[in-house]
């Protein structure tokens, strides 16, 4: 079981994994519909109003085609891609479909990779590619059979097109909606015939997104936009020190404010309930709270790093070993060592955390945008003591997720507030609370060692030290001391190296909660590996592209991406300085999330150490592309997310408190700093790869290597240190 889970997490697109899904999830997915359909027929009398061939498709006699979205939309475009896959195999056009978020139901809607309802790890399309195609094709097969019966012909001489069955010899046509009543008793085949790739009408087309028209005119409803009759508004403050508690509270000034109804005092946080978010915030500011800081009152970033560095000196648990790395490193040739460090990061979704809840005597209703809607339901059940079926959880669109909404702490807090409030309450976090009580991307320290012989890497050791998010969030992903996410893109380093040793040291930072952040484990590992390889290329006296290319024989898809990115970026030609600074081009390659990507960044570094990213060229082979425009959009946006982290991203802690609080000190890239970005998609018939996080993992190493090329300074930490780049401070490189 565990080995299977690990395999699925690592290689969800692999054939064996897909088979596993069909065997485990498939029975549930396709077995469930029969009782449902009977029930629907019974309820409606003799003629069924609805055709529900499986968990994902609902059709009625009016022609409505409702598609149920098992994965959640947070901007990545997955609602459109999922709809395209279902509509492709069902053979309806996209203007015929309506979308609906799946309710909490692990049996029907679990992500086949995780085994729970979760949207993350860039795996929506990888995980659901075959289940959705089969769902669409199965429904189409039933409709074809219904038509064939009606016409008294063989189903094999019928075809379909845009919501109609066609009898090929006569050209006779009938709309799906007219067949709904004739589907009774016809079961979906277990292995319905799937379309061949070259017969796709929708998949591969840059179709318009289905969720965006309502996003230009204010009609869209995110979690934060919930409005209910008699709803109250609340905002909250947890103890600024991690793990601290509420002590004495003087609420007299707050309660005297107009619009403030109620102060909710709980062990670890306080909330103000009011007529509006403005009154609630004013009330919060008027509270006099004595916090009990607790044991973390002295924790600071400095101690975090000291402890992490000490932990990284011990041998780690071996996550992968090939050949004899220890011997190769001691005898193999020129030895080279470097350490790379990444900071805590906040998610800072544009939509601050929020959750609307109504707790009644024997039920609870929750409205929230969540990447894990069944966990949202479960936490509400746990807090209220209600059985899960008494908790109705509605999933709304998200104003960004990036991993933050894989957590349910905000839902738990909202339910605890709602237990004290009469009627529905919308709990909205201030941006300050959102930044200071995040679940942070952990600090990571990567120790890399390699030996070079005749210009080739012969020995390689990579020791990753950092939090195990899996151990808390998904225990099957933490086995025998190895967190499979923390070593993702380290154990599968794409280069041909005869002697490898990849180690993992689990080290949890004091006090600071850590969680998934866009790019997850590969974020750290791609940065460390690609920075190190750039330094090795220099050590070997080789061009960074040529050096990588010489080590990519076993990864032809990545080699092709490298060649394309190098050629499209004019690699090897000079870059004119547009602003009088030092210019350089940097490359990175990665195979993370089953997508093969090469990225070239161009930078200009001025005398003050400020870095301007002027151009990014990215080549991607992500297998079969469902919607190429979405792939381009995710690459563009993911790159900017990664550039933001590399240039600015750092959460620091002092006296147990996060020091940043809002966008003035936790900065984001803006329009005037946005580089020219060019994305090149490589055509492929391989299984689809993941795209949501890949741009984010690509940008920091490409940018860092461009700075290396421009200045000769090998940065070993992010965010970039402008003092080092300006020559005001030595680079803390250890060699």
């Amino acid at each position, binding site marked *: 079981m565990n080995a299977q889970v690990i395999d699925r997490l690592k290689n969800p697109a692999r054939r064996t994994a897909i088979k596993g899904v069909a065997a485990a999830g498939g029975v549930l997915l396709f077995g469930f519909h029969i009782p449902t359909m009977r029930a629907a027929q019974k309820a409606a009398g003799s003629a069924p109003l609805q055709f529900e061939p499986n968990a994902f498709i609902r059709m009625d006699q009016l022609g409505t085609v409702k598609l149920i979205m098992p994965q959640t939309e*947070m901007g*990545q475009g997955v609602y459109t891609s999922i709809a395209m896959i279902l509509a492709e195999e069902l053979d309806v056009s996209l203007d015929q479909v309506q979308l609906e978020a799946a309710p909490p139901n692990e049996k029907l809607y679990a992500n086949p990779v995780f085994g729970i309802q979760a949207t993350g790890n860039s795996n929506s399309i990888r995980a659901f590619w075959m289940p959705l195609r089969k769902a669409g094709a199965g429904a189409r097969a039933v409709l074809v059979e219904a038509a064939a019966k009606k016409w008294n012909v063989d189903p094999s001489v019928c075809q379909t097109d845009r919501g109609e069955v066609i009898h090929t010899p006569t050209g006779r046509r009938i709309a799906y909606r007219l067949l709904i009543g004739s589907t009774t008793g016809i079961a979906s085949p277990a292995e319905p015939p799937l379309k061949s790739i070259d017969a796709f009408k929708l998949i591969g087309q840059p179709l318009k997104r289905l969720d*965006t028209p309502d*996003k230009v005119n204010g*009609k869209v409803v995110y979690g934060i936009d919930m409005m209910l009759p008699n709803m109250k508004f609340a905002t909250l403050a947890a103890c600024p020190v991690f793990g601290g508690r509420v002590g004495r509270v003087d609420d007299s000034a707050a309660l005297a404010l107009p619009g403030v109804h109620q102060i909710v005092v709980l062990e670890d946080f306080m909330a103000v309930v009011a007529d509006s978010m*403005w009154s609630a915030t004013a009330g919060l500011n008027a509270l006099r709270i004595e916090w009990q800081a607790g044991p973390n009152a002295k924790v600071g970033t400095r101690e975090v790093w000291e402890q992490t560095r000490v932990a990284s000196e011990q041998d780690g648990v071996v996550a992968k070993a090939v050949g004899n790395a220890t011997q190769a490193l001691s005898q193999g040739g020129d030895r080279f060592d470097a350490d790379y460090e990444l900071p805590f990061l906040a998610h800072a979704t544009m939509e601050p955390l929020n959750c609307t809840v109504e707790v009644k005597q024997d039920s609870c209703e929750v409205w929230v945008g969540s990447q894990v809607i069944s966990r949202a339901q479960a936490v509400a059940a746990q807090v209220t003591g209600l059985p899960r079926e008494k908790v109705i959880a509605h999933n709304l669109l998200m*104003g960004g997720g990036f991993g933050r909404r894989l957590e349910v702490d905000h839902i738990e807090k909202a339910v605890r507030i709602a237990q004290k409030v009469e009627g529905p309450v919308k709990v909205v976090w201030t941006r300050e609370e959102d930044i200071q009580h995040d679940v942070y991307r952990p600090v990571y320290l990567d120790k890399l060692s390699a030996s070079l012989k005749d210009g080739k890497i012969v020995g390689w050791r990579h020791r990753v030290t950092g939090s195990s998010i899996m151990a808390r969030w998904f225990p099957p992903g933490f086995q025998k001391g190895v967190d499979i996410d923390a070593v993702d893109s380290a154990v599968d380093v794409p280069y041909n190296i005869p002697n490898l040793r990849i180690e993992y040291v689990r080290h949890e930072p004091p006090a600071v909660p850590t969680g998934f952040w866009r790019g997850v484990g590969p974020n750290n590992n791609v940065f460390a590996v690609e920075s190190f390889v750039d330094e090795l290329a220099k050590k070997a006296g080789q061009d960074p592209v040529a050096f990588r290319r010489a080590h990519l024989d076993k990864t032809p898809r990545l080699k092709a991406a490298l060649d394309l990115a190098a050629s499209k970026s004019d690699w090897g030609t000079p870059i004119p300085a547009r602003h009088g600074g030092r210019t350089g081009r940097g490359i990175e390659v990665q195979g993370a999330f089953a997508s093969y990507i090469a990225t070239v960044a161009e930078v200009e570094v001025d005398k003050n150490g400020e870095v301007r990213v002027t151009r990014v060229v990215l080549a991607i082979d992500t297998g079969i592309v469902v919607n190429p425009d979405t792939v381009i959009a995710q690459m563009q946006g993911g790159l900017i997310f990664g550039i933001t982290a590399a240039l600015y991203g750092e959460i620091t802690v002092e006296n147990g408190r996060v020091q940043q609080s809002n*966008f003035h000190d936790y900065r*984001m890239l803006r*329009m005037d700093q946005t580089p020219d970005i060019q994305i090149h998609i490589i055509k492929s018939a391989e299984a689809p790869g993941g795209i949501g996080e890949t741009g984010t993992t690509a940008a920091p190493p490409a940018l860092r290597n461009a700075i290396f090329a421009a200045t000769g300074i090998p940065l070993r930490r992010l965010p970039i240190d402008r003092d080092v780049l300006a020559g005001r401070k030595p680079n803390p490189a250890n060699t």
Partner: protein
Amino acid sequence: MVALTINGQESNVEAPEQMPLLWVLRDLLGLTGTKFGCGIGQCGACTVHLDGNPVRSCLLPIGAVGDRAITTVEGVGATPSGAKIQKAWLDIEVIQCGYCQSGQIMSATALLNSTPQPTDADINAAMSGNICRCGTYVRIREAIKRASRSQP
């Protein structure tokens, strides 16, 4: 009682004069298209127009609005520039999560109103106060240029 003209309609709002327009729109009037992002005028998600000029509604007390006409994302499509911007946003497929886009659309519409043929420098100046965490800036620039070339 404060009298406001919002998207061409007059409303009498029962709220203190110091209450920011953002929360009057969202929490009292249910016009939730205007978004809360930071509360300190750093992100631009709450941008609305006063007489066609972009303002951050999270920092604007309703008592300071006076008789100026308020336009929000719900009403901006009724203006020629707003309609062009909304169309260009969909044509270029700018939007990802969309949360910041109300503010982006309001800032971009105001830019087109004041500068019908904006240069890259004009776009930088007008749009750099609006943060997009999804990183849609490349397409925002392209969409503004497309809208500036299009006929109403």
